[in-house]
């Protein structure tokens, strides 16, 4: 016990050096915690943006529609698939979409766009279109149309202006045109949507395409965790003709980013640990070698190798404890600030996902358990080297000034 006490008291012999070392190592730990928390926040934001902007927790398509986007491959709303979906009580919302490539023409310009045939009441529950309406309102009448803000600018149309939509009918490929009025303009911040998407009433689009089915079924559970628990259920809906996918399969880039994040955290951890190792080694070597005479005395009066190792390791342990306390305080303050106020990255695209909300720092247990514990263990491990150097000092040489 006294050996441990000795180690702990020794770090306070040179307070300034110990505090500077503790701060250096603590800042390293804080950096690691902050980067991890920020990545976690960013990932959560990306998943949330991807899922709640448009994708949902799961999507179901006709297998051939998924491959060719030919409008005749639709799902029958009265089929067994929809019965199964309705029976799952954990599903909060089911939205059906009709999707078609359309020619959108104003008096000024004609452009290609994706026409999304929606049931407004369902779609409001799924996507963020209704939260991103810049002007006007959701399509209320059958000839209402909501348009992306970039597309609106390219077509030079305003609210209430008329637009002609042209689509190819299913099976025959005959062109079918209808006149719509701009009832709303949305701006999601997602370039592809704002530049190339229009929202119309589902029944109207079905009539134009001469189909009775839908192309896309979007499923939302209460939260992401429930969605992950229901992944097997979604997978079980796939058949020869139907392809049911969970959000991870729909936005693989987000999953990829999560893996890259883990990898980069690992690399950062290694770099940090090397730096920490150097700082600790320097401090210990400085502290120990200026006391080599004292170690000579300790040797002379009968301190064994094992006890010297314990003493030096306990000194490193004390130094690392000081470091992790400082590091965790810094991380708590800065992370706490970010977790409340967040960092505004809205509108920034990353990994094909556009952030629509602020990124908030996310605290996790591992940041305050795994990282500090690893740091302490690593520090103690690193201290074995200077300890080994010290135990090799011959007492007679260390004491040559006296005995």
């Amino acid at each position, binding site marked *: 016990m006294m050996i441990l006490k000795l180690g702990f008291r020794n770090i306070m012999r040179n307070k300034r050096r110990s505090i500077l070392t503790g701060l250096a190592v603590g800042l390293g730990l804080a950096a690691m915690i902050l980067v991890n928390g920020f990545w976690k926040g960013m990932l959560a934001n990306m998943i949330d943006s991807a899922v709640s902007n448009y994708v949902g927790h799961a999507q179901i398509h006709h297998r051939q529609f998924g491959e060719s986007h030919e409008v005749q491959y639709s799902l029958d709303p009265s089929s067994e698939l929809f019965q199964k979906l309705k029976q799952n009580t954990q599903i909060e919302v089911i939205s059906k979409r009709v999707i078609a490539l359309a020619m959108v023409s104003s008096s000024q310009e004609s452009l290609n766009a994706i026409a999304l045939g929606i049931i407004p009441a369902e779609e409001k529950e799924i996507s963020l279109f209704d939260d991103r309406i810049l002007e006007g309102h959701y399509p209320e009448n059958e000839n209402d149309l909501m348009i992306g803000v970039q597309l609106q600018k390219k077509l030079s149309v305003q609210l209430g202006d008329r637009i002609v939509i042209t689509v190819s009918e299913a099976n025959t490929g005959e062109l079918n045109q209808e006149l719509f009025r701009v009832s709303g303009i949305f701006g999601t911040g997602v370039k592809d949507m704002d530049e190339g998407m229009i929202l119309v009433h589902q029944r109207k689009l079905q009539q134009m395409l001469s189909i009775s089915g839908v192309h896309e079924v979007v499923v939302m559970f209460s939260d992401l965790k429930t969605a992950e628990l229901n992944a097997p259920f979604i997978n079980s809906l796939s058949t020869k003709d139907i392809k049911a996918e969970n959000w991870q399969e729909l936005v693989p880039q987000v999953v990829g980013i999560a893996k890259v994040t883990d990898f980069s955290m690992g690399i950062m951890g290694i770099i940090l640990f090397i730096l920490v190792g150097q700082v600790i080694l320097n401090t210990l070597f400085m502290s120990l070698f200026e006391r080599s005479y004292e170690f000579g005395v300790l040797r*002379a*009066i009968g301190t064994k190798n094992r006890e010297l190792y314990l003493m030096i390791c306990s000194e490193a342990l004390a130094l690392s404890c000081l470091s992790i306390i400082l590091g965790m305080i810094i991380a708590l303050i800065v992370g706490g600030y970010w977790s409340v106020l967040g960092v505004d990255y809205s509108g920034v695209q990353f990994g094909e996902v556009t952030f629509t909300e602020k990124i908030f720092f996310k605290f996790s247990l591992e940041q305050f358990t795994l990282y500090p514990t690893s740091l302490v263990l690593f520090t103690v491990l690193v201290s074995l080297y200077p300890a080994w150097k010290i135990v090799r000092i011959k*007492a007679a040489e260390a*004491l040559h000034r*006296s*005995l």
Partner: protein
Amino acid sequence: MEHVFQLENVSKVFGEGAVQVKALNSINLEFHRGEFSALIGPSGSGKSTLLNIMSGLDTPTTGDVFLDGINISEMSGNKLCDFRRDHIGFIFQSFNLIPVLTVKENIEYIMLLQGVAEEKRLQRVEEILERIGLKGFNNRYPNQLSGGQQQRVAIARAIASQPSIILADEPTANLDSKTGTELIDLMAQLNADYGTTFIFSTHDQKIMDRARRLVTLEDGKIVSDKLS
């Protein structure tokens, strides 16, 4: 009289080849239990080397050193460490107390290494502190003591393990004359009371005057060995 130390043909050579220095040259010496003796001689005469070899901190190039009949020049590692801890006490010129330990802890430390039970350790610390005139100084740190008080604590640490012999290297060199005399009186008293053998390496005339035996070294050889 019973031998505590016996040195047989002890030589120590430093360096190799053409730069060899013979620090000790065929030393034959015996110290008896209860002696109060001093190694004297000019700087570089081999006093420190002889003390290092007697304490097992260094090994002789040739020859043997027996302490309590056991050849310590053949010992190494933990065995030597344990033997040194249990049989030899050290008093250094510059006190060399552990600065982060209190007076009590400095004295207790060596008993802790010996595995002495806490109750016994504390009892012994109290006894020793009273004996050396530092009762009530238990919780002071070395930097809160005068030089003389620090050297008293160093003596207390040396006798705490109840060694057969205490090797003291210039123990009064950093003290004023009055304090030095008090320290010598204390060590002489301990020698008389406990029968602990004291061997000094010194230039201090006061120690030479009080030592009952003076061994003079020159160029690694004993040139005189006188009882006073």
